[in-house]
Every structure is written in structure tokens, then in C-alpha cells.
């Protein structure tokens, strides 16, 4: 027994680590709707609460229509200016960010099939139709549904994600830069949301929160986002 005591210690460490990892994965809110399914399958398997609000997705057996736009970003607002919306599409994939610049935000990802955009976040969804010039549709965030429109824009307009560690708290920031250069954003960390720090779209590398640098990425439709 004594001979194997160090191995037993190693095994105990591995088991504890694995147990905690599994507990984390099971309780991660981002995993509860998408569970073990890969992201694309999760989008196809629409959870019922938003499938009713969404246009019926094409049957899975039918070949998906080619996306009408190869790569484009759109920015706009909901009809009553409740949220600013940005969507980026690339090669049939899409990501979106919506926020009010104060407390509301949503990260979504999904697909562009033909001219139909379908995106899903943790507690949000977007269904819209799009062409080169504009996107029109409906966005739902935390149970509230708003019609929105968004114009096709060129860089530096679009959506940006920032990540940093602020006083030890992993912090995520989303910004939308519209075609006029107006910036709307929300930062979230440790379960709270607040207005984002300023972003200079021509120099995103210089972004800081209270002096702490934040790594900023301009997102395209192919980017990985964590739906929230």
C-alpha cells in the first residue's frame, strides 16, 4: 500500500479536478441549452421557446440555400431605439451583438441560409432577412421582442469584442460602431453589466478600462462568440 501512496495522491488530485470540471460544465448557463451538441447542431435543434417565435427553419433534408451575402456587417437599432444591434455574416455563419449601452446586452450566433438569418443567444434570438444593403427582422432579448433594421456598413463600423481582467475579474465588453462612428457598448463581469469604456475604432489596441488594457477584436461572421 505504501508503495502506491504517491500514485493514490495523484489519482485523488485527478479525480477532484475532473469532478470539479464536470460540475462546472454542468452548471455553466451557456451549456444548459446547448449541452453536448456541437454549436451548428444546437442551432438546428431549435429550443421550443423561440422556435415558435421564429420562422420555421428549412427541413434538414433540403440542401441549404447559398447565402445571399458572402461577408458583410450590419448595424442598426430596434424600432423604439431600445437596443442597438450589430450583425456580421461570413460564409453562411453569423454572429450578432445587441445592447442598450447601459444594462441590456446579448451575444448571439447562428446562420445565414439564402437571405434568412437565424441567430440564437442564451436568452435571446434574432430572425431576419438580409441582402447586401440591409437586414430587417425581429430581436428578442430576455423575453422582450422588438422589430429592428440594420444597414450594411463597412469597417471600421461593425461589432467588437473586448476581453480583459479587471481587478481580477474576467471582463467581457461588446461594442457596436455604426456607420457614423457612434459607439454603443456594455461591459460585463462577475455577473454585473455597465456601460462600456470608450472605444476608438481606428485604434482598438489602445482600449483600457481604468488603465487596464483590454484585448479588442473586430468580429466577423465566422468569429467564435460565447452566446450569452
Amino acid at each position, binding site marked *: 500500500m*505504501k*508503495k*502506491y*501512496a*504517491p*500514485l493514490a*495522491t*495523484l489519482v*485523488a*488530485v485527478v479525480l*477532484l*479536478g475532473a469532478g*470539479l*470540471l464536470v*460540475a*462546472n*460544465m454542468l*452548471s*455553466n*448557463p*451557456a451549456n444548459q441549452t446547448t449541452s453536448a451538441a456541437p454549436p451548428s447542431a444546437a442551432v438546428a435543434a431549435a429550443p421550443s421557446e423561440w422556435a415558435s417565435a421564429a420562422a420555421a427553419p428549412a427541413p434538414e433534408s433540403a440542401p441549404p440555400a447559398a447565402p445571399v451575402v458572402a461577408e458583410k456587417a450590419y448595424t442598426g437599432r430596434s424600432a423604439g431605439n431600445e437596443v442597438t444591434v450589430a450583425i456580421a455574416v461570413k460564409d453562411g455563419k453569423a454572429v450578432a451583438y445587441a445592447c442598450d449601452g447601459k444594462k441590456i446586452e446579448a451575444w448571439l450566433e447562428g446562420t445565414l441560409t439564402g437571405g434568412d438569418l437565424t441567430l440564437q443567444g442564451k436568452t435571446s434570438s434574432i430572425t431576419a432577412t438580409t441582402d447586401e444593403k440591409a437586414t430587417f427582422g425581429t430581436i428578442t432579448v430576455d423575453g422582450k421582442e422588438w422589430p429592428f433594421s440594420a444597414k450594411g456598413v463597412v469597417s471600421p463600423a461593425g461589432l467588437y469584442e473586448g*476581453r*480583459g*481582467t479587471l*481587478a*481580477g*475579474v*474576467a471582463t*467581457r465588453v461588446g461594442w457596436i460602431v455604426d456607420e457614423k462612428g457612434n459607439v454603443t457598448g456594455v461591459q460585463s*463581469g*462577475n455577473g454585473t453589466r455597465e456601460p462600456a469604456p470608450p472605444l476608438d475604432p481606428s485604434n482598438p489596441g489602445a482600449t483600457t478600462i481604468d488603465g487596464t*488594457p483590454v*484585448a479588442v477584436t473586430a468580429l466577423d461572421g465566422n468569429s*467564435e462568440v*460565447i452566446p450569452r
Partner: protein
Amino acid sequence: MNAHVPARNRQTRALVVAFGVGSLVAVGLGVYGSTHEPVFFALNLAGFSSGLAAKAWLATGAFLLAVVQLVSALIMYGRIPVRAPSWIGGLHRWSGRAAVLLTVPVAVHCLYALGFQAGEPRVLVHSLFGCFFYGAFTAKMLVLRADTPNWALPVLGGAVFSALTALWLTASVWFFTTSGLTF
């Protein structure tokens, strides 16, 4: 002389296995940490104001136990002029086990919620030592009961202790100095 050759070979083999497995552990953790998408989410431990405070205190507990490790090891190796009590070995083993188990929730949170980051020097050093710590710890466990040269155990023990100290300095101490001594 010939009789020593197989022994030397056995020692070398045990060392290669221990260091090899340890290196794999360290590199594996680093690869997982950098390829896994950080989720910015983790279970919070009951009784602490934030996950970060919990981590800082768990790591502090581990560091204090590591100091016990260092002192008890020095006594066992006769470097402190006191008569080694009979329970010193048990103290060393159990404080070590407790220390490494305390580090596990911290490491899981680091790897799962944050990942391997290189954005600033403190974070890069912390990420590197985090991977190195578990590699060195694995190697030390494998060396304990194997037939290895006498220097292997204290060197690995020292590496584990140094790595944990560096981890504690780059995280807990940093947290306490920026956020205050919060629970």
C-alpha cells in the same frame, strides 16, 4: 563496477519516466488552457464574496501548507538542527496532500473559466507556473517510490515549492494588494 550499471540504468529510466510524464502534464495543461475557449463562468464556493476571493484564500492555504512542507523537509534532511520527531514524515505527507488538494479548485477555475493567458507579464508568468506546478508535482510523486538518484526528490520538491510560491505571489498577493484582504 558492473553491478552498478543496471542500477544506474534503472535510475535513469525512472527519472526519464517521471520527468517525461511530468512534462506531458505541464504541456497538456497549457494546451488545454490555450485551446479551450474561456467561458468566464465558474461555480462559486459558498462563504466567499466572489470566486476570486475564494481562489485567493484557497491558494493562501495551500501556500501556508507548502511552508510546512519546506520546513518539515528541511528537518527530515537534517538541515535544521533539531531532532526529527517521529511524526515528521506523516506531517510532511499529509500537509502536502492537503496543500495540493486545495490548489485543485483554484486550478480548475483558472483553466476552465480563464485559460492560458499571456496578455500581461503577471498573467503570463502565472499561466506558465500553473502548468509547470502540476508537471513538477506529478514528477515528484512518481520519483517518491522509484529508485532514482538522491538529488531528484529535493530538486523536484524545491521546484514544486518555488512554483507554488510564484503562483501565490502572482495571484493571491496581487489580489489582496489590489482588492484588499477580502473574504
